[in-house]
């Protein structure tokens, strides 16, 4: 039992330092894992300290809840495939946000609405942001898990409806802060916030997920931080805010990588109306040329430099291990292989890096966009595996294109381009890719994993 507030404060300070170190150690892959362990120690210190607070009871309930939570967390974390990582991140985001909102609500409930002015501000903020994060993350999870369509779900007047919901929640929040001591108001606020969370993620397409996931991450951090003000807990304030800062940083970075504002990603309902120029270009005489694994194998085997451009299609097909194998077979033949990583390839920041790390690809072969783009001119074959919009030259020169201005990988500068794709369906942006009509481009249709396996065999047979 710890009754001295100074001891409690110091122990929480230890936890804070551990969390900061955990993030600090993430600056290099070598020490990153140790950092996570330090963070774990910090969490245990914080939990232990809280459990030792004077007057804590309900031990049986605490133990049961902890056991259930641990089971969910362990099973989830252990069984999830690396390719399913974005939805896992979304899920853990959601539960954190939900917990923050519940904690804030119960503080209001316990005090029967009779709280100080700074407490009610924090309670309103925490309930609002936490609920939005919870509901939004669940929708993001459902979309990534393909329980819901990954395409934007839109209807007319969507932005008006969403604004109304948000205004309603905001109005209730202001009424509560102004002194409305009614629990129904906070309940209604939470319901509206949940609704808003659902509505604001629904219209966001799969390709914009990196922005949304980062943003929800920031929201949960902010909700936790606000809860810290309710409970007068510095460890919550600081740890929550560290997450808030990190999520904000990633959100801005992802948006910048797409050359769009965060507001445009969230409210632009991307992929909605882009029928325009596609029709005129389709019949200008150029056609898509399909090829066979054997032909591709010949090209690859006799190339000096091959650049692999992975995208979400590789993740879906879980082809990362086979891709690495293909690269190794090529390297044995003296081919120089590198991987070009676009910042928003996949469904969350750094998605391709994780997948290729799982497949044991040495990370000196992973090249970021700025580093690899000048090298395409000396590249013999660019092998695009399940990536689409991030290679679309329309982003460079077609002002009418919805992705105009987005920095892309300059694969069309390579001597030849091979695009591995399931079918001619456009990417998540829902637009045609000029690259496929380029005379230097050939298409290898089929499941990425099957195609790569065939390629390995064909290269070996060379």
């Amino acid at each position, binding site marked *: 039992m710890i009754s001295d507030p100074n001891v409690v404060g110091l122990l929480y300070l230890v936890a804070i330092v551990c969390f900061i170190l955990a993030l600090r150690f993430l600056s290099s892959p070598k020490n990153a894992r140790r950092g996570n*362990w330090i963070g774990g120690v910090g969490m245990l210190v914080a939990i232990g300290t809280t459990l030792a607070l004077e007057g804590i009871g309900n031990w049986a309930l605490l133990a049961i809840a902890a056991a259930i939570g641990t089971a*969910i967390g*362990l099973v989830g974390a252990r069984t999830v495939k690396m390719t399913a990582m974005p939805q896992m*991140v979304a899920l853990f985001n959601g539960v954190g946000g939900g917990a923050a909102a*519940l904690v804030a609500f119960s503080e209001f409930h316990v005090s029967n609405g009779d709280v100080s002015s700074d407490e009610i501000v924090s309670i309103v903020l925490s309930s609002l942001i936490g609920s939005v994060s919870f509901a939004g993350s669940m929708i993001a999870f459902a979309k990534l898990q393909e329980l819901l369509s990954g395409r934007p779900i839109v209807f007319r007047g969507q932005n008006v409806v969403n604004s109304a919901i948000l205004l309603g929640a905001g109005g209730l929040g202001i009424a509560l802060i102004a002194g409305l001591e009614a629990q129904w108001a906070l309940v209604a606020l939470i319901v509206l916030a949940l609704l808003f969370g659902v509505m604001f993620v629904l219209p966001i397409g799969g390709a914009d997920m990196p922005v949304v996931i980062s943003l929800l991450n920031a929201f949960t951090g902010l909700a936790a931080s606000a809860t810290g003000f309710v409970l007068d807990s510095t460890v919550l304030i600081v740890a929550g805010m560290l997450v808030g*800062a990190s999520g904000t940083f990633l959100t801005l970075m992802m948006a910048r990588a797409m050359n769009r504002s965060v507001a445009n990603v969230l409210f632009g309902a991307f992929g909605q109306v882009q029928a325009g120029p596609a029709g005129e270009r389709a019949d200008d005489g150029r056609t898509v040329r399909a090829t066979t694994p054997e032909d591709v194998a010949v090209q690859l085997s006799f190339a000096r430099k091959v650049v692999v451009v992975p995208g979400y299609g590789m993740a879906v097909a879980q082809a990362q291990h086979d891709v690495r194998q293909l690269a190794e077979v090529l390297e044995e033949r003296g081919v120089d292989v590198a991987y070009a990583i676009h910042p928003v390839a996949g469904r969350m920041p*750094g998605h391709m*890096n994780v997948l290729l790390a799982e497949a044991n690809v040495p990370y000196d072969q992973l090249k970021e966009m700025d580093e690899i783009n000048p090298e395409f001119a000396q590249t013999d074959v660019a092998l695009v595996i399940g990536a689409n919009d991030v290679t679309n030259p329309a982003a460079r020169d077609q002002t009418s294109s919805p992705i105009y201005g987005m920095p892309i990988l300059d694969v069309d500068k390579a001597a030849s381009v091979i695009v591995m794709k399931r079918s001619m369906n456009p990417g998540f942006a829902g637009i045609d890719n000029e690259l496929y009509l380029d005379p230097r481009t050939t298409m290898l249709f089929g499941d990425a994993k099957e195609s790569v396996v065939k390629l390995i065999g064909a290269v070996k047979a060379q």
Partner: protein
Amino acid sequence: MTHTPLVIELTILVLAIFLGFEVISKVPTMLHTPLMSGTNFIHGIVIVGAIVVLGFADDGVTKTIGFVAMVLATANVVGGWFVTDRMLEMFKRRPTDRER
């Protein structure tokens, strides 16, 4: 818990924002996914709030809310940590370490 003056708490908050940006801007792009899941784990700190709510709860409603909050927060902490650890384990191998 003891009562900290609001101004002090706000000061701490603002310093944490700057510190957060400072630390996070040093994380290489390659590690952005582990950064996400690592910070996911850290916001599990809300478990402290869940313990306080459930630990001090008297009535049924508070107990129920606290219980659910505790389940969610524990799942957040445990899941977040193990996912991050799994991910970082893959990055730990030396850059040129080839299996074969």
